[in-house]
């Protein structure tokens, strides 16, 4: 067998082996790996490279070496999935650096963290005042995770007592001018619906670069021709506006009429409608 053919076969073989080894070792990103996993990856890579180019060495020996470097980390990973104590040893434990707003000096020393390191890591998380921190923990991977004090946390709808409407993921129903049947079926819609909606917007499907439909059946499109203005969905804002107008009208009628019975009817209904608007407005705001 000529040498070049040998190298070709070895390279292709080792490429395939390497592909499967890395696949089985998992999907962790480089930054999430601990030192051990990182080195394991490099070693497997160099063993395989060695097998591919060193014609004097035996392929079998190389495979044994790569196998050992694969099997042991794999076994360690499997066991540590099941066993917490073992996991603490192999993957390390996290260290609390700030608790109840107080810096744990002993833990800092244990992790060989200087005050500057701590401040730098906190700044990484956009915290410039340690007094703003309730809790900070150093993960085994070396990242510091910070829980700010409640008053320094970003405002969420829950805090101000709002109940926003739940939102499902939109589906891309048109891509590059072609109808995607599966996403349409996911929303239990069909091509007839799509044609009607496009007709309403007065655009042809060939001109649509991307079209998305949300779970409420609203279609938004982006066109190839960016000079054409596309109307945005108006059904829900219009409905909200007309409900509000009706409510205001009822209030007006209640004020205008002199018939006590009619006044009462208008007032009650205006109140009912106001409640309804409160209920529905999270769903109608997009």
């Amino acid at each position, binding site marked *: 067998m000529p040498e070049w053919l040998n190298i070709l076969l070895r390279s292709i073989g080792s490429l395939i082996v390497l592909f499967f080894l890395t696949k089985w070792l998992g999907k962790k990103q480089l930054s999430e790996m601990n030192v051990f996993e990182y080195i394991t990856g490099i070693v497997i890579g160099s063993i395989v490279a060695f097998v591919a180019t060193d014609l004097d060495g035996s392929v079998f020996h190389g495979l044994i070496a790569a196998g050992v470097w694969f099997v042991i980390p794999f076994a360690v990973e499997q066991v540590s999935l099941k066993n917490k104590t073992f996991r603490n040893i192999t993957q390390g434990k996290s260290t609390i650096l700030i608790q109840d707003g107080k810096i744990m000096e002993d833990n800092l020393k244990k992790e060989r963290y200087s005050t500057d390191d701590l401040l730098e890591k906190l700044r990484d998380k956009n915290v410039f005042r340690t007094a703003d921190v309730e809790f900070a923990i150093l993960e085994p991977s070396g990242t510091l995770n910070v829980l700010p004090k409640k008053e320094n946390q970003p405002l969420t709808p829950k805090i101000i007592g709002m109940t926003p409407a*739940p939102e499902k993921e939109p589906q891309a129903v048109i891509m590059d001018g072609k109808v995607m049947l599966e996403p349409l079926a996911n929303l239990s819609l069909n091509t007839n619906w799509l044609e009607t909606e496009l007709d309403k917007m007065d655009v042809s499907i060939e001109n649509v670069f991307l079209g998305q439909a949300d779970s409420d059946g609203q279609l938004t499109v982006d066109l190839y021709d960016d000079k054409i203005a596309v109307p945005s969905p108006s059904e829900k804002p219009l409905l909200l506006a007309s409900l509000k107008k009706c409510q205001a*009208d*009822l209030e007006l009628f209640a004020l205008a009429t002199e018939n006590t019975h009619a006044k009462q*009817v*208008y007032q009650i*209904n205006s109140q009912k409608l106001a409640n*309804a608007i409160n*209920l529905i407005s999270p769903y109608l705001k997009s």
Partner: protein
Amino acid sequence: MTVGSQVKACFSSLKSADATLGILANKTQSDQARDAFSDVQKIVSEVKDDLQKQVIRLSKEEPQYKS
């Protein structure tokens, strides 16, 4: 515009809102949204029914403006 026609206009807006709510309730995929839409549709149609009685009463009071 007489009061009667104003109330009539309000009544027809409510009718359209009622129908739109029905469409939205049928179109949405989320159970929570469907419940909200149909609850509100119920309230709106109650208001609509009350208003319809009012429209009838007013058209009796102002027969000269009957259209």
